[in-house]
């Protein structure tokens, strides 16, 4: 265990936790409203850690849908992490023991992925950093769910505090950091464009977030094609 790395990971999770706070609170409140107990809502955030997937579960429950529908929708929503996780493999290989890396990948989300990838551009990954980042983000998610489920409707409108922009602001900033090559700009912009276009043409992909997967595959392939020429 490297203390400095662990601390850095925890530090880097603070903006993530800030962004999760309103989302976790809202999940706790909504879960309660559709008939989940405080324990169930908190256990769901502990075992699942999939914000979009958990919101879908609430939506389906509200509409009186089946368990199978929720699970199937979650297969689609979570499939993108196969791609994210695969792209982390070349970084983790030889630096983080496979068993530990596998265990800690449980805490992979859009946000921890973005922050970790950014860090690994100029720092070697360590198990301690991964643990600090992923576990504390997850604890933030669990805690805010618990608070939401307990406090319920006592919680006012968190939008007023501007916290709704915490995660978008983080994406914007990490995108700026991530851009190193000219081809990266091209890839990011085309991915953004394809993602919206696919979402517009096939609205269901806006819910299962399949548009992110397809846009990423297209944009990364275009990136390989155009960078071959330099």
């Amino acid at each position, binding site marked *: 265990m490297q203390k400095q790395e662990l601390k850095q990971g925890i530090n880097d999770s603070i903006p993530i936790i800030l962004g999760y706070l309103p989302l976790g609170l809202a999940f706790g409140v909504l879960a309660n409203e559709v008939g989940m107990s405080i324990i169930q809502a908190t256990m769901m955030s502990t075992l699942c850690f999939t914000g979009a997937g958990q919101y879908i579960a609430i939506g389906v429950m509200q509409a009186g849908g089946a368990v199978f529908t929720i699970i199937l929708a979650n297969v689609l929503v979570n499939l993108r992490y196969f*791609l994210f996780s695969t792209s982390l493999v070349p970084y983790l290989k030889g630096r983080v023991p496979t068993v530990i890396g596998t265990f800690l990948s449980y805490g992979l989300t859009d946000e921890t992925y973005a922050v970790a990838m950014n860090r690994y551009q100029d720092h070697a990954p360590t198990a301690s950093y991964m643990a600090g980042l992923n576990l504390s983000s997850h604890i933030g998610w669990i805690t805010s769910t618990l608070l939401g489920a307990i406090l319920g409707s006592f919680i006012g409108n968190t939008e007023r505090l501007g916290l709704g922009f915490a995660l978008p602001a983080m994406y914007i900033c990490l995108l700026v950091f991530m851009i190193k090559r000219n081809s990266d700009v091209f890839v990011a912009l085309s991915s953004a464009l394809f993602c919206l276009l696919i979402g517009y043409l096939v609205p269901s992909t806006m819910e299962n977030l399949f548009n992110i997967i397809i846009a990423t595959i297209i944009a990364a392939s275009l990136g390989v094609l155009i960078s071959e020429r330099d």
Partner: protein
Amino acid sequence: MSETSIWIMIIGVSLVSILPRILPVALFSRYEFPKPLKRWLSFVAPAVLGALTALSVLAPDGDINISIHNRYIWAFIPTLLVAIKTRSLFYSLLVGILTMALLYNFV
């Protein structure tokens, strides 16, 4: 939904959310990826961030909303400028959140 159904749902969702996250690390770590694949994978992060930024700003409530009434677009501009200028996550977040709070309460 009954008590039991909810627990089955939670366990089912946890399985399908954990597997795609951990399987690549568990299975692929022993292999050396071929160069072209590594190159392709190196574009995954910028592509993912491009898509996430676009969705979070242009479809903040889940539906595409490209109009002057979308506060997220207005908050995007100062946040991007601060991110480029300071290269600090802290200041970008601060400016983004403050702008959003101002827009929400006063516009």
